[in-house]
Protein backbone atom coordinates (compact mmCIF):
# COMPACT_ATOMS: atom_id res chain seq x y z
CA UNK A 1 0.00 0.00 0.00
CA UNK A 2 1.20 3.49 -0.85
CA UNK A 3 2.36 5.46 2.19
CA UNK A 4 0.19 8.48 2.97
CA UNK A 5 3.32 10.52 3.62
CA UNK A 6 6.83 10.13 2.38
CA UNK A 7 9.87 12.28 3.05
CA UNK A 8 12.74 11.75 0.61
CA UNK A 9 16.13 13.10 1.67
CA UNK A 10 14.56 16.24 3.07
CA UNK A 11 16.80 19.00 4.44
CA UNK A 12 16.00 22.46 5.75
CA UNK A 13 18.58 25.21 6.12
CA UNK A 14 18.06 28.35 8.11
CA UNK A 15 20.57 31.19 8.05
CA UNK A 16 23.52 29.85 10.02
CA UNK A 17 22.30 26.36 10.74
CA UNK A 18 20.80 23.23 9.23
CA UNK A 19 17.60 22.39 11.13
CA UNK A 20 16.79 19.18 9.28
CA UNK A 21 19.52 17.14 7.66
CA UNK A 22 18.66 14.64 4.94
CA UNK A 23 15.80 12.75 6.56
CA UNK A 24 13.71 10.06 4.90
CA UNK A 25 10.52 8.63 6.34
CA UNK A 26 7.50 6.66 5.16
CA UNK A 27 4.23 6.63 7.06
CA UNK A 28 1.68 3.94 6.16
CA UNK A 29 -1.93 5.19 6.12
CA UNK A 30 -4.06 5.14 9.23
CA UNK A 31 -1.45 4.93 11.98
CA UNK A 32 -0.53 7.03 14.97
CA UNK A 33 3.04 8.30 14.64
CA UNK A 34 5.34 10.39 16.77
CA UNK A 35 8.33 12.59 16.00
CA UNK A 36 10.26 12.47 19.25
CA UNK A 37 13.33 14.46 20.16
CA UNK A 38 14.83 17.16 22.34
CA UNK A 39 14.11 20.81 21.58
CA UNK A 40 16.02 22.04 18.57
CA UNK A 41 16.27 18.58 17.01
CA UNK A 42 14.29 19.63 13.92
CA UNK A 43 11.02 17.87 14.69
CA UNK A 44 8.83 20.97 14.56
CA UNK A 45 10.55 22.15 11.37
CA UNK A 46 9.82 18.74 9.85
CA UNK A 47 6.16 19.06 10.83
CA UNK A 48 6.01 22.57 9.37
CA UNK A 49 7.45 21.34 6.08
CA UNK A 50 4.73 18.70 5.91
CA UNK A 51 2.10 21.32 6.70
CA UNK A 52 3.46 23.64 4.03
CA UNK A 53 4.63 26.45 6.35
CA UNK A 54 8.27 25.89 5.43
CA UNK A 55 9.76 24.83 2.10
CA UNK A 56 12.42 22.11 2.13
CA UNK A 57 15.86 23.34 1.08
CA UNK A 58 16.45 19.94 -0.53
CA UNK A 59 14.52 16.73 -1.00
CA UNK A 60 10.83 16.00 -1.53
CA UNK A 61 7.69 15.80 0.57
CA UNK A 62 5.16 13.40 -0.95
CA UNK A 63 1.50 13.08 -0.03
CA UNK A 64 -0.17 9.98 -1.47
CA UNK A 65 2.72 9.58 -3.87
CA UNK A 66 2.73 13.11 -5.32
CA UNK A 67 5.33 15.76 -4.56
CA UNK A 68 3.77 18.67 -2.68
CA UNK A 69 6.88 20.79 -2.05
CA UNK A 70 5.51 23.82 -3.88
CA UNK A 71 1.96 23.62 -2.55
CA UNK A 72 0.84 26.28 -0.09
CA UNK A 73 -0.78 25.20 3.18
CA UNK A 74 -4.24 26.02 1.75
CA UNK A 75 -3.57 23.76 -1.22
CA UNK A 76 -2.56 20.70 0.83
CA UNK A 77 -4.90 18.11 2.22
CA UNK A 78 -3.23 18.09 5.61
CA UNK A 79 -4.23 19.89 8.75
CA UNK A 80 -2.34 21.06 11.81
CA UNK A 81 -3.36 21.31 15.45
CA UNK A 82 -1.15 24.15 16.67
CA UNK A 83 0.57 24.11 20.01
CA UNK A 84 -1.18 27.35 21.00
CA UNK A 85 -4.38 25.96 19.36
CA UNK A 86 -4.68 29.21 17.31
CA UNK A 87 -8.46 29.35 17.66
CA UNK A 88 -10.09 32.36 16.06
CA UNK A 89 -10.99 34.52 19.06
CA UNK A 90 -13.88 36.29 17.32
CA UNK A 91 -15.70 33.07 16.42
CA UNK A 92 -17.66 30.59 18.54
CA UNK A 93 -16.51 26.98 18.85
CA UNK A 94 -18.98 25.97 16.15
CA UNK A 95 -17.88 28.72 13.73
CA UNK A 96 -14.24 27.79 14.37
CA UNK A 97 -14.98 24.21 13.37
CA UNK A 98 -16.96 25.38 10.34
CA UNK A 99 -14.12 27.64 9.16
CA UNK A 100 -12.44 25.11 6.88
CA UNK A 101 -15.73 23.66 5.64
CA UNK A 102 -16.76 27.14 4.55
CA UNK A 103 -13.50 27.63 2.63
CA UNK A 104 -14.10 24.33 0.89
CA UNK A 105 -17.67 25.41 0.14
CA UNK A 106 -18.97 22.09 1.44
CA UNK A 107 -22.66 21.48 2.00
CA UNK A 108 -24.36 20.86 5.38
CA UNK A 109 -21.53 22.53 7.25
CA UNK A 110 -23.34 22.92 10.52
CA UNK A 111 -24.36 19.26 10.99
CA UNK A 112 -20.82 18.19 10.10
CA UNK A 113 -19.29 20.65 12.54
CA UNK A 114 -21.72 19.52 15.24
CA UNK A 115 -20.73 15.89 14.66
CA UNK A 116 -17.06 16.83 14.97
CA UNK A 117 -17.76 18.65 18.24
CA UNK A 118 -19.60 15.54 19.41
CA UNK A 119 -16.57 13.43 18.56
CA UNK A 120 -14.40 15.59 20.81
CA UNK A 121 -17.13 15.63 23.50
CA UNK A 122 -17.94 19.31 23.31
CA UNK A 123 -21.65 19.02 22.60
CA UNK A 124 -23.45 21.90 24.32
CA UNK A 125 -20.43 24.24 24.21
CA UNK A 126 -20.67 25.07 20.51
CA UNK A 127 -21.77 28.67 21.12
CA UNK A 128 -18.91 29.61 23.42
CA UNK A 129 -16.03 31.74 22.25
CA UNK A 130 -12.45 30.58 22.87
CA UNK A 131 -12.18 33.00 25.82
CA UNK A 132 -14.99 31.08 27.53
CA UNK A 133 -13.34 27.66 27.11
CA UNK A 134 -10.75 25.95 29.31
CA UNK A 135 -7.37 24.92 27.93
CA UNK A 136 -8.50 21.34 27.40
CA UNK A 137 -11.69 22.46 25.69
CA UNK A 138 -9.77 24.79 23.40
CA UNK A 139 -7.62 21.91 22.34
CA UNK A 140 -10.71 19.83 21.59
CA UNK A 141 -12.06 22.63 19.39
CA UNK A 142 -8.73 22.79 17.56
CA UNK A 143 -8.87 19.02 17.06
CA UNK A 144 -12.47 19.12 15.83
CA UNK A 145 -11.62 22.02 13.49
CA UNK A 146 -8.95 19.87 11.80
CA UNK A 147 -10.68 16.48 12.01
CA UNK A 148 -13.88 17.76 10.41
CA UNK A 149 -11.93 18.27 7.16
CA UNK A 150 -10.93 14.59 7.15
CA UNK A 151 -7.35 15.42 6.11
CA UNK A 152 -4.97 12.86 4.62
CA UNK A 153 -2.81 13.38 7.66
CA UNK A 154 -3.36 15.28 10.89
CA UNK A 155 -0.31 17.04 12.29
CA UNK A 156 -0.16 17.81 16.00
CA UNK A 157 2.52 20.14 17.36
CA UNK A 158 3.19 19.27 21.02
CA UNK A 159 -0.56 18.69 21.47
CA UNK A 160 -0.44 18.02 25.19
CA UNK A 161 2.31 20.42 26.28
CA UNK A 162 -0.03 23.23 27.34
CA UNK A 163 -2.32 21.03 29.45
CA UNK A 164 -1.94 20.38 33.15
CA UNK A 165 -0.29 17.04 34.01
CA UNK A 166 -3.47 15.19 35.02
CA UNK A 167 -5.39 16.22 31.91
CA UNK A 168 -2.35 15.41 29.79
CA UNK A 169 -2.47 11.78 30.86
CA UNK A 170 -6.20 11.51 30.22
CA UNK A 171 -5.83 13.03 26.78
CA UNK A 172 -3.27 10.41 25.73
CA UNK A 173 -5.83 7.63 25.70
CA UNK A 174 -8.45 9.91 24.21
CA UNK A 175 -6.26 11.09 21.32
CA UNK A 176 -5.41 7.51 20.49
CA UNK A 177 -9.08 6.52 20.63
CA UNK A 178 -9.93 9.41 18.30
CA UNK A 179 -7.31 8.28 15.84
CA UNK A 180 -8.68 4.74 15.83
CA UNK A 181 -12.25 5.95 15.50
CA UNK A 182 -11.62 8.30 12.58
CA UNK A 183 -8.95 6.22 10.83
CA UNK A 184 -7.09 9.45 9.98
CA UNK A 185 -3.28 9.25 10.05
CA UNK A 186 -1.95 11.21 13.05
CA UNK A 187 1.61 12.53 13.24
CA UNK A 188 2.51 14.30 16.43
CA UNK A 189 5.59 16.07 17.65
CA UNK A 190 6.71 15.70 21.25
CA UNK A 191 9.77 15.90 23.44
CA UNK A 192 8.16 13.65 26.07
CA UNK A 193 9.31 10.07 25.55
CA UNK A 194 6.58 8.60 27.74
CA UNK A 195 3.98 10.33 25.61
CA UNK A 196 5.52 9.06 22.38
CA UNK A 197 5.89 5.49 23.65
CA UNK A 198 2.40 5.22 25.10
CA UNK A 199 0.45 6.69 22.20
CA UNK A 200 2.19 5.80 18.96
CA UNK A 201 2.22 2.85 16.63
CA UNK A 202 5.66 3.94 15.48
CA UNK A 203 8.12 6.53 16.76
CA UNK A 204 10.74 8.45 14.80
CA UNK A 205 13.44 9.55 17.22
CA UNK A 206 15.18 12.71 16.04
CA UNK A 207 18.44 14.29 17.12
CA UNK A 208 20.34 17.21 15.59
CA UNK A 209 18.32 17.18 12.38
CA UNK A 210 18.59 13.42 11.83
CA UNK A 211 16.17 10.57 12.36
CA UNK A 212 18.16 8.20 14.55
CA UNK A 213 15.60 5.41 14.54
CA UNK A 214 12.09 4.74 13.29
CA UNK A 215 10.32 1.81 14.88
CA UNK A 216 7.58 0.59 17.19
CA UNK A 217 7.74 1.79 20.80
CA UNK A 218 9.01 -1.68 21.85
CA UNK A 219 11.75 -1.60 19.22
CA UNK A 220 13.06 1.85 20.06
CA UNK A 221 12.90 1.20 23.79
CA UNK A 222 14.19 -2.37 23.92
CA UNK A 223 16.46 -2.31 20.87
CA UNK A 224 17.64 1.28 20.49
CA UNK A 225 19.75 1.78 17.38
CA UNK A 226 22.07 4.38 18.89
CA UNK A 227 23.26 5.40 22.34
CA UNK A 228 21.29 8.63 21.87
CA UNK A 229 18.02 6.75 21.36
CA UNK A 230 18.76 4.53 24.32
CA UNK A 231 19.45 7.51 26.55
CA UNK A 232 16.57 9.65 25.29
CA UNK A 233 13.88 7.02 25.67
CA UNK A 234 14.74 6.17 29.24
CA UNK A 235 17.45 6.22 31.85
CA UNK A 236 20.36 3.90 31.16
CA UNK A 237 23.36 2.64 33.12
CA UNK A 238 26.60 2.42 31.19
CA UNK A 239 29.08 -0.37 31.98
CA UNK A 240 31.77 0.40 29.46
CA UNK A 241 30.03 0.13 26.07
CA UNK A 242 27.21 -1.96 27.49
CA UNK A 243 23.97 -0.26 28.46
CA UNK A 244 21.44 -1.63 30.94
CA UNK A 245 18.05 -0.07 31.80
CA UNK A 246 17.46 0.63 35.52
CA UNK A 247 14.53 -1.79 35.66
CA UNK A 248 16.87 -4.60 34.49
CA UNK A 249 19.58 -3.65 36.95
CA UNK A 250 19.69 -5.66 40.20
CA UNK A 251 21.44 -5.13 43.52
CA UNK A 252 22.64 -7.83 45.93
CA UNK A 253 24.91 -8.19 48.98
CA UNK A 254 26.47 -11.45 47.78
CA UNK A 255 28.35 -11.91 44.54
CA UNK A 256 25.90 -13.39 42.00
CA UNK A 257 26.85 -16.46 39.96
CA UNK A 258 27.11 -16.63 36.20
CA UNK A 259 25.93 -13.11 35.36
CA UNK A 260 27.85 -9.92 34.65
CA UNK A 261 28.37 -7.83 37.79
CA UNK A 262 30.26 -4.87 39.29
CA UNK A 263 31.30 -3.79 42.79
CA UNK A 264 29.54 -0.64 44.01
CA UNK A 265 28.55 1.36 47.08
CA UNK A 266 24.96 2.54 47.75
CA UNK A 267 24.76 6.30 47.59
CA UNK A 268 21.07 7.03 48.13
CA UNK A 269 17.60 5.69 47.47
CA UNK A 270 14.65 7.66 46.18
CA UNK A 271 11.14 6.54 47.09
CA UNK A 272 8.43 7.00 44.40
CA UNK A 273 5.57 5.15 46.08
CA UNK A 274 5.18 2.24 43.67
CA UNK A 275 8.92 1.86 43.13
CA UNK A 276 12.31 2.83 44.52
CA UNK A 277 15.37 4.13 42.68
CA UNK A 278 18.59 2.94 44.31
CA UNK A 279 21.61 5.03 43.26
CA UNK A 280 25.05 3.55 43.62
CA UNK A 281 28.64 4.55 42.82
CA UNK A 282 30.63 1.93 40.92
CA UNK A 283 34.08 1.10 42.26
CA UNK A 284 35.40 1.40 38.69
CA UNK A 285 33.89 4.90 38.49
CA UNK A 286 30.50 6.08 37.29
CA UNK A 287 26.98 5.78 38.63
CA UNK A 288 24.28 3.13 38.32
CA UNK A 289 20.57 3.37 39.08
CA UNK A 290 18.51 0.28 39.90
CA UNK A 291 14.73 0.48 39.82
CA UNK A 292 13.45 -1.88 42.53
CA UNK A 293 10.15 -2.68 44.18
CA UNK A 294 9.65 -1.53 47.77
CA UNK A 295 10.28 -5.05 49.06
CA UNK A 296 13.55 -5.42 47.14
CA UNK A 297 15.06 -2.33 48.72
CA UNK A 298 16.73 -3.30 52.01
CA UNK A 299 20.03 -1.53 51.50
CA UNK A 300 21.73 1.03 53.70
CA UNK A 301 23.46 4.14 52.41
CA UNK A 302 27.18 3.51 52.07
CA UNK A 303 26.75 -0.27 52.00
CA UNK A 304 29.06 -2.23 49.65
CA UNK A 305 26.99 -4.22 47.14
CA UNK A 306 27.10 -6.03 43.81
CA UNK A 307 25.33 -4.54 40.78
CA UNK A 308 24.33 -7.22 38.26
CA UNK A 309 22.05 -7.93 35.31
CA UNK A 310 21.01 -10.63 32.84
CA UNK A 311 23.08 -10.74 29.59
CA UNK A 312 19.78 -10.76 27.64
CA UNK A 313 19.01 -7.26 28.97
CA UNK A 314 22.22 -5.74 27.67
CA UNK A 315 22.05 -3.05 24.99
CA UNK A 316 24.97 -3.01 22.57
CA UNK A 317 25.88 -0.41 19.98
CA UNK A 318 28.30 -0.51 17.09
Amino acid at each position, binding site marked *: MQPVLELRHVSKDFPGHRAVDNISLELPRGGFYALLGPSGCGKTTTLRMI*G*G*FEQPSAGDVLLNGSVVNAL*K*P*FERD*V*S*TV*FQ*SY*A*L*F*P*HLTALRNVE*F*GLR*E*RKLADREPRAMRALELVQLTGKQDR*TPAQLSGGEKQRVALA*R*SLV*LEPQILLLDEPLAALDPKLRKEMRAELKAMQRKTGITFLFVTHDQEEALSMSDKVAVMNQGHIEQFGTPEEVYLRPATPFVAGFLGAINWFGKTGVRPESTRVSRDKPDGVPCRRAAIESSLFFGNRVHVNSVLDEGGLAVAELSREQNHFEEGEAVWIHWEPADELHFE
Partner: protein
Amino acid sequence: MSLRSRFLLPARVWMALFFAAPMAIVLSYSFLTRGEYGGVEQPWTVENFIRLADPIYLSILWRSIWIAGLSTALCALLGFPLALFISRSGRRRNLYLQLVLLPFWTSFLVRTYAWLFILRDTGLVNTVLMRLNIIATPMQLLYNDRAVLLGLVCNFLPFFVLPMYATLERLDPALLEAAADLGARPFATLRRVIIPVSAPGFVAGSVLVFIPCLGAYLTPDLLGGGKTVMLGNLVQNQFTTARDWPFGSAASLVLMLASALLLASLMRSRMARELT
Protein backbone atom coordinates in the same frame (compact mmCIF):
# COMPACT_ATOMS: atom_id res chain seq x y z
CA MET B 1 -5.36 63.08 53.36
CA SER B 2 -4.43 59.68 51.99
CA LEU B 3 -1.37 59.20 49.79
CA ARG B 4 -3.60 58.40 46.88
CA SER B 5 -5.61 61.62 47.05
CA ARG B 6 -2.41 63.61 47.59
CA PHE B 7 -1.03 62.18 44.39
CA LEU B 8 -4.23 63.01 42.55
CA LEU B 9 -4.48 66.56 43.91
CA PRO B 10 -2.46 68.32 41.16
CA ALA B 11 -4.49 66.60 38.47
CA ARG B 12 -7.72 67.48 40.24
CA VAL B 13 -6.79 71.14 40.56
CA TRP B 14 -5.75 71.24 36.94
CA MET B 15 -8.96 69.61 35.72
CA ALA B 16 -11.11 71.88 37.91
CA LEU B 17 -9.40 75.07 36.70
CA PHE B 18 -9.00 74.25 33.03
CA PHE B 19 -11.77 71.78 32.31
CA ALA B 20 -14.65 71.96 34.77
CA ALA B 21 -14.67 75.76 35.13
CA PRO B 22 -14.63 76.53 31.37
CA MET B 23 -17.28 73.86 30.84
CA ALA B 24 -19.47 75.51 33.45
CA ILE B 25 -18.96 78.87 31.77
CA VAL B 26 -19.89 77.48 28.34
CA LEU B 27 -22.90 75.73 29.83
CA SER B 28 -24.17 78.86 31.55
CA TYR B 29 -23.50 81.08 28.50
CA SER B 30 -25.55 78.77 26.35
CA PHE B 31 -28.63 79.58 28.45
CA LEU B 32 -28.08 83.38 28.47
CA THR B 33 -28.96 86.16 26.03
CA ARG B 34 -26.58 87.80 23.59
CA GLY B 35 -25.04 91.09 24.67
CA GLU B 36 -25.10 94.02 22.26
CA TYR B 37 -21.32 94.14 21.74
CA GLY B 38 -20.55 90.49 22.43
CA GLY B 39 -20.58 89.00 25.91
CA VAL B 40 -23.71 87.74 27.59
CA GLU B 41 -26.68 89.23 29.41
CA GLN B 42 -29.68 88.16 31.46
CA PRO B 43 -32.35 86.77 31.12
CA TRP B 44 -31.88 83.02 31.08
CA THR B 45 -33.36 81.33 28.01
CA VAL B 46 -33.41 78.13 25.96
CA GLU B 47 -33.78 80.18 22.78
CA ASN B 48 -30.23 79.30 21.61
CA PHE B 49 -30.97 75.59 21.53
CA ILE B 50 -34.29 76.12 19.76
CA ARG B 51 -32.46 78.15 17.13
CA LEU B 52 -30.07 75.23 16.56
CA ALA B 53 -33.04 73.10 15.45
CA ASP B 54 -33.42 75.48 12.51
CA PRO B 55 -32.93 73.52 9.23
CA ILE B 56 -29.94 75.71 8.31
CA TYR B 57 -28.07 74.68 11.44
CA LEU B 58 -29.27 71.10 11.31
CA SER B 59 -27.88 70.83 7.81
CA ILE B 60 -24.52 72.13 9.11
CA LEU B 61 -24.62 69.43 11.80
CA TRP B 62 -25.36 66.71 9.24
CA ARG B 63 -22.74 68.06 6.91
CA SER B 64 -20.15 67.95 9.68
CA ILE B 65 -21.08 64.36 10.51
CA TRP B 66 -20.96 63.47 6.82
CA ILE B 67 -17.54 65.03 6.18
CA ALA B 68 -16.10 63.64 9.42
CA GLY B 69 -17.52 60.21 8.56
CA LEU B 70 -16.12 60.32 5.05
CA SER B 71 -12.71 61.39 6.35
CA THR B 72 -12.76 58.52 8.83
CA ALA B 73 -13.68 56.04 6.09
CA LEU B 74 -10.86 57.34 3.88
CA CYS B 75 -8.39 57.16 6.78
CA ALA B 76 -9.47 53.54 7.40
CA LEU B 77 -9.17 52.70 3.71
CA LEU B 78 -5.65 54.15 3.50
CA GLY B 79 -4.56 53.46 7.06
CA PHE B 80 -5.44 49.78 7.41
CA PRO B 81 -3.27 48.53 4.52
CA LEU B 82 -0.49 50.84 5.64
CA ALA B 83 -0.67 49.58 9.25
CA LEU B 84 -0.79 45.98 8.01
CA PHE B 85 2.25 46.61 5.83
CA ILE B 86 4.19 48.19 8.69
CA SER B 87 3.28 45.40 11.11
CA ARG B 88 4.68 42.84 8.64
CA SER B 89 7.90 44.74 7.86
CA GLY B 90 10.08 43.08 10.46
CA ARG B 91 13.03 45.18 11.45
CA ARG B 92 12.13 48.19 9.33
CA ARG B 93 8.87 48.81 11.12
CA ASN B 94 10.32 51.35 13.55
CA LEU B 95 11.61 53.35 10.59
CA TYR B 96 8.18 53.27 8.94
CA LEU B 97 6.48 54.30 12.18
CA GLN B 98 8.83 57.28 12.41
CA LEU B 99 7.85 58.23 8.87
CA VAL B 100 4.16 58.07 9.82
CA LEU B 101 4.90 60.41 12.72
CA LEU B 102 7.11 62.74 10.64
CA PRO B 103 4.30 65.25 9.83
CA PHE B 104 3.94 65.96 13.56
CA TRP B 105 7.33 67.62 13.48
CA THR B 106 5.72 70.57 11.74
CA SER B 107 2.74 72.57 12.92
CA PHE B 108 -0.76 71.58 11.94
CA LEU B 109 -1.31 75.12 10.66
CA VAL B 110 1.80 75.04 8.49
CA ARG B 111 0.78 71.73 6.96
CA THR B 112 -2.65 73.08 6.11
CA TYR B 113 -1.16 76.25 4.56
CA ALA B 114 1.17 74.03 2.53
CA TRP B 115 -1.90 72.56 0.85
CA LEU B 116 -2.98 76.10 -0.06
CA PHE B 117 0.30 76.60 -1.89
CA ILE B 118 -0.01 73.24 -3.64
CA LEU B 119 -3.64 73.53 -4.67
CA ARG B 120 -4.29 77.21 -5.42
CA ASP B 121 -4.68 78.52 -8.98
CA THR B 122 -1.02 79.53 -9.17
CA GLY B 123 0.01 76.58 -7.01
CA LEU B 124 2.26 73.62 -7.71
CA VAL B 125 -0.31 71.28 -9.27
CA ASN B 126 -1.87 73.83 -11.62
CA THR B 127 1.46 75.36 -12.66
CA VAL B 128 2.98 71.98 -13.53
CA LEU B 129 -0.10 70.80 -15.43
CA MET B 130 -0.29 74.08 -17.36
CA ARG B 131 3.41 74.07 -18.23
CA LEU B 132 2.99 70.54 -19.54
CA ASN B 133 0.02 71.75 -21.59
CA ILE B 134 -2.25 69.20 -20.02
CA ILE B 135 -4.69 71.91 -18.98
CA ALA B 136 -5.17 75.40 -20.41
CA THR B 137 -6.74 77.17 -17.44
CA PRO B 138 -6.18 76.45 -13.73
CA MET B 139 -8.44 73.86 -12.13
CA GLN B 140 -10.45 74.88 -9.09
CA LEU B 141 -8.79 72.56 -6.57
CA LEU B 142 -9.34 74.68 -3.46
CA TYR B 143 -12.41 75.88 -1.60
CA ASN B 144 -14.57 72.79 -1.98
CA ASP B 145 -15.44 69.64 -0.02
CA ARG B 146 -12.71 67.61 -1.69
CA ALA B 147 -10.01 70.01 -0.53
CA VAL B 148 -11.40 69.86 3.01
CA LEU B 149 -11.45 66.05 2.90
CA LEU B 150 -7.90 65.97 1.60
CA GLY B 151 -6.73 68.26 4.40
CA LEU B 152 -8.55 66.31 7.10
CA VAL B 153 -7.36 62.89 5.89
CA CYS B 154 -3.80 64.15 5.59
CA ASN B 155 -3.80 65.58 9.06
CA PHE B 156 -5.55 62.74 10.85
CA LEU B 157 -4.25 59.64 9.02
CA PRO B 158 -1.53 58.99 11.65
CA PHE B 159 -4.22 58.92 14.33
CA PHE B 160 -5.76 55.96 12.54
CA VAL B 161 -2.53 54.21 11.59
CA LEU B 162 -1.04 54.12 15.11
CA PRO B 163 -3.83 52.29 17.01
CA MET B 164 -4.41 50.06 13.98
CA TYR B 165 -0.74 49.16 13.94
CA ALA B 166 -0.77 48.46 17.69
CA THR B 167 -3.63 46.00 17.17
CA LEU B 168 -2.16 44.29 14.11
CA GLU B 169 1.24 43.99 15.74
CA ARG B 170 -0.33 41.92 18.53
CA LEU B 171 -2.11 39.62 16.07
CA ASP B 172 -0.94 36.06 16.71
CA PRO B 173 0.85 34.84 13.54
CA ALA B 174 -0.41 31.33 14.36
CA LEU B 175 -3.94 32.55 13.53
CA LEU B 176 -2.85 33.35 10.00
CA GLU B 177 -1.16 29.96 9.67
CA ALA B 178 -4.26 28.26 11.05
CA ALA B 179 -6.44 30.03 8.48
CA ALA B 180 -4.15 28.99 5.63
CA ASP B 181 -4.03 25.47 7.06
CA LEU B 182 -7.81 25.28 6.97
CA GLY B 183 -7.83 26.24 3.31
CA ALA B 184 -8.12 30.03 3.38
CA ARG B 185 -6.28 31.87 0.62
CA PRO B 186 -4.58 35.14 1.62
CA PHE B 187 -7.59 37.30 0.74
CA ALA B 188 -9.98 35.04 2.66
CA THR B 189 -7.60 35.18 5.64
CA LEU B 190 -7.68 38.98 5.46
CA ARG B 191 -11.47 39.09 5.29
CA ARG B 192 -12.31 36.31 7.74
CA VAL B 193 -9.50 36.59 10.29
CA ILE B 194 -7.32 39.71 10.15
CA ILE B 195 -10.07 42.31 9.78
CA PRO B 196 -12.51 40.88 12.36
CA VAL B 197 -9.77 40.16 14.90
CA SER B 198 -8.39 43.69 14.57
CA ALA B 199 -11.82 45.31 15.01
CA PRO B 200 -10.68 47.06 18.23
CA GLY B 201 -8.02 48.86 16.20
CA PHE B 202 -10.67 50.01 13.70
CA VAL B 203 -12.82 51.32 16.55
CA ALA B 204 -9.97 53.11 18.32
CA GLY B 205 -8.60 54.61 15.09
CA SER B 206 -12.04 55.70 13.90
CA VAL B 207 -12.83 57.44 17.19
CA LEU B 208 -9.49 59.24 17.14
CA VAL B 209 -10.15 60.49 13.61
CA PHE B 210 -13.91 61.10 13.67
CA ILE B 211 -14.11 63.22 16.81
CA PRO B 212 -11.47 65.82 15.91
CA CYS B 213 -12.80 65.89 12.32
CA LEU B 214 -16.30 66.59 13.61
CA GLY B 215 -15.06 69.66 15.47
CA ALA B 216 -12.51 70.77 12.85
CA TYR B 217 -12.64 74.46 11.95
CA LEU B 218 -9.18 75.39 10.73
CA THR B 219 -9.07 72.98 7.78
CA PRO B 220 -12.59 73.79 6.49
CA ASP B 221 -11.86 77.49 7.03
CA LEU B 222 -8.62 77.53 5.04
CA LEU B 223 -9.22 74.84 2.41
CA GLY B 224 -13.00 75.12 2.23
CA GLY B 225 -12.83 78.88 1.88
CA GLY B 226 -15.70 79.43 4.28
CA LYS B 227 -18.09 77.83 1.79
CA THR B 228 -17.79 74.43 3.39
CA VAL B 229 -19.13 75.38 6.77
CA MET B 230 -18.81 72.75 9.46
CA LEU B 231 -19.96 72.92 13.05
CA GLY B 232 -16.54 74.09 14.18
CA ASN B 233 -16.73 77.08 11.83
CA LEU B 234 -20.19 77.91 13.13
CA VAL B 235 -18.91 78.03 16.70
CA GLN B 236 -15.91 80.09 15.66
CA ASN B 237 -18.05 82.61 13.75
CA GLN B 238 -20.43 83.11 16.64
CA PHE B 239 -17.61 84.08 18.95
CA THR B 240 -15.85 86.32 16.41
CA THR B 241 -17.77 88.03 13.61
CA ALA B 242 -21.33 87.31 14.76
CA ARG B 243 -20.63 88.15 18.39
CA ASP B 244 -23.31 85.76 19.56
CA TRP B 245 -21.55 84.00 22.42
CA PRO B 246 -24.64 82.24 23.82
CA PHE B 247 -25.47 80.71 20.47
CA GLY B 248 -21.84 79.71 19.92
CA SER B 249 -21.82 78.08 23.36
CA ALA B 250 -24.98 76.15 22.57
CA ALA B 251 -23.52 74.96 19.25
CA SER B 252 -20.30 73.81 20.90
CA LEU B 253 -22.28 71.95 23.55
CA VAL B 254 -24.23 70.12 20.83
CA LEU B 255 -20.93 69.24 19.15
CA MET B 256 -19.60 67.85 22.40
CA LEU B 257 -22.80 65.95 23.04
CA ALA B 258 -22.66 64.37 19.57
CA SER B 259 -19.09 63.19 20.17
CA ALA B 260 -19.92 61.89 23.65
CA LEU B 261 -22.96 59.98 22.41
CA LEU B 262 -20.92 58.37 19.68
CA LEU B 263 -18.21 57.32 22.13
CA ALA B 264 -20.75 56.00 24.61
CA SER B 265 -22.50 53.89 21.99
CA LEU B 266 -19.16 52.45 20.84
CA MET B 267 -18.10 51.61 24.38
CA ARG B 268 -21.44 50.03 24.99
CA SER B 269 -21.35 47.82 21.91
CA ARG B 270 -17.82 46.80 22.81
CA MET B 271 -18.77 45.98 26.38
CA ALA B 272 -21.79 44.06 25.15
CA ARG B 273 -19.53 42.06 22.87
CA GLU B 274 -17.09 41.27 25.64
CA LEU B 275 -19.82 40.20 28.03
CA THR B 276 -21.38 37.65 25.68
